[in-house]
């Protein structure tokens, strides 16, 4: 029994160990990596990605996949920026209403996404990918290819104001991480995600409305994408069609690297936090130690495979599709 326990414990903590090893490795290569200011920089680049990754974590726990994040983030960012500017352009006015509006837009996109997937019986992979394209196209239609600048000092304090060395956006991300954790562990919906992912037929036979859980899952993911969009706009002060770019790769990779299995039922938001940090530490570390640009992508790919090998329990599955 003792050995089984050790193995389980090891697998549970493997992602964190990978993260610590990476940090120590980069710190050994370049001492300046290991500084509060650099951790704050990693925090800034992680915060929006973490929100998007938490959103997709719920979907992956259900055993589905959501690839609509790039389109959803762009739409939320652009709608937020237009509404924010139209309603006064500063948080000190009614323009703060643009914040909940963006979350609402995210929820609506997620709802449509879920309905297309469930009602039209299109695999989540295809339905969400297609919705992502629709989102990107819609954002392009709204902006006409232009970028919208959000310059309000109050809103930008997400980036510029620091507490204990970290900008406010890191604390906002932390707050939503805790909300995600609460949903995952303390709500029926959160536990139902695991039920669906662990065995959909069983869940259905037990009287669970699986379709409803799925649709709510996509809606919830949409809200988290919207939070990610707001932090992304806060980070660079620009909303555009390209705001959502790259989020797909970063978020899916982070979720998997963090130890949440793509076949569902395993993992959670803390795994995702570790996963996002692993990916961003690798990205930041490679530049910091001066790895040439042309090998960075290749090294990132290899490290991701290595991290997945180390941090997922592959013994529990007989085959991988």
């Amino acid at each position, binding site marked *: 029994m003792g050995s089984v326990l050790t193995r389980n414990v090891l697998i549970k903590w493997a992602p964190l160990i990978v993260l610590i090893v990476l940090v120590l490795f980069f710190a050994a290569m*370049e001492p*300046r*990596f290991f*500084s509060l*200011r*650099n951790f704050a*920089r990693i925090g*800034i*680049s992680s915060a929006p990605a973490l929100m998007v990754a938490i959103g997709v974590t719920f979907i992956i726990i259900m055993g589905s996949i959501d690839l609509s994040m790039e389109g959803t983030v762009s739409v939320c960012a652009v709608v937020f920026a237009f509404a924010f500017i139209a309603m006064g352009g500063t948080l000190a006015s009614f323009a703060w209403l643009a914040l909940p509006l963006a979350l609402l837009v995210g929820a609506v996109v997620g709802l449509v996404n879920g309905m297309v997937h469930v009602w039209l019986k299109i695999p989540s992979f295809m339905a969400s990918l297609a919705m992502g394209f629709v989102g990107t196209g819609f954002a*392009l239609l709204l902006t006409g*290819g*232009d*970028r919208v*600048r959000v310059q309000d000092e109050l809103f930008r304090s997400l*980036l*510029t104001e620091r507490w204990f060395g970290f*900008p406010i956006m890191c604390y906002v991300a932390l707050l939503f991480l805790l909300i995600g954790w609460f949903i995952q562990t303390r709500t029926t919906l959160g536990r139902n995600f695991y039920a669906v992912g662990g065995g959909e037929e069983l869940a259905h036979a037990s009287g669970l409305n699986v379709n409803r859980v799925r649709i709510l899952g996509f809606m919830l993911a949409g809200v988290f994408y919207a939070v990610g969009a707001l932090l*992304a706009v806060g*980070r*660079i*002060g*620009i909303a*555009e069609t*390209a*705001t959502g*770019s*790259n989020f797909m790769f970063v978020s899916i990779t982070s979720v998997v690297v963090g130890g949440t299995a793509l076949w569902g039922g395993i993992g959670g938001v803390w795994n995702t936090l570790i996963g996002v940090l692993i990916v961003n530490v690798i*990205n*930041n570390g*490679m*530049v*910091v*130690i*001066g790895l040439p*640009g*042309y090998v960075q992508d290749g090294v990132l790919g290899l490290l991701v495979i290595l991290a997945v090998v180390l941090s997922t329990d592959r013994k529990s599955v007989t085959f991988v599709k």
Partner: protein
Amino acid sequence: MSFIKKFIEQETISRRNFLLASAYGVGGVAASSMLGGVARAAISDPTVAWSYRNRTNPYWNEIVSGGEAFIESLGKPKEFLTHLINEGSSEKSLSDVKALLSKTNGELALAIDTNDAPNARPIVEAVAQAGGYVSTIWNKTDDLHPWDFGDNYVSHMTWSDEGPAEQTARILLDAMGGKGGVVHLGGIASNNPAIERLQGLKNALKDYPDVELLAAEPADWDTQKANQVMSAFLTRYGDEIKGVHCANDTIAYGVLEALRAEGIEDMPIVSYDGNPQAVQLVAEKKILATVFTNPHWGGGITAALAYHAAIGTFKPSEEPNAHREFYGPAVFVTPEDAAAFKANYIDSVPNYDWKDFWGPTNGQIAYK
């Protein structure tokens, strides 16, 4: 939804043209190969066409709006310009041109980006064969030259970014006081402009022995990526960084925000492209210089060259080579002239003299 209607109409026409062209083709090829191309005097009223990728890209939108401005300068409605949209397909580009040549019986003044370099030769040959006139931009192979086609291949224009990037680099290095460390954030590593813009910086650095190029990383023309790369640079080099050379404006936006997050407000930065937002930042002295390639003028003058060659305003074969293959304009925008530039180019579009074909160009193309 009028653009959809327009698109369908356009597709219908080009399909009809294609059918006509196929019918013509068999006879036409036989006839033209016997004659060895149609030799004709000036065309009194040629059809003017622009063949390009599509209009959703802001750059091509500027190019085409220049073409329309030229048409309007002729006293015609801008609908007179025929749009051949290739959507990134060289095959469609070629078949559309052939169809239009048949429809117009070769009475065509064509401005075109052939989508890729190898496609330029069949296009030029088809136009020359039919007795039309063509001016190309951006894409052609190095062995294809306008002067090998008499008057029919009027001109080719492209842009070299190496020289202008070198000049902005000098502005940057001077602002740094000629010493300290500089970092470069580039475009997608394999893109030609990305390579040329980095090379421009390297050329300038030869004259500044006390400046060290600390690092050059691709930021993929992407604001968010640039933001993250710049943050990592700040960790690695910290205060050693005294200046930033950006491959384009979108990269500069990300760099500015990465610096802002650290409370750094006065870092010298230069960029490229002359986007309106970047020009504004130049006026505010947040960016020291950017370069504007004037796609509006480029689109207009390319159509104008083909048109005026067709109606006989000038005879291309009597022009020097520098008037057949040349670099497009590069306008520098610095804090001193940013306000004037904004007023002249962004807030209002200047009225160009579409017969001043070569004034703003930048010398004959040099092959390496």
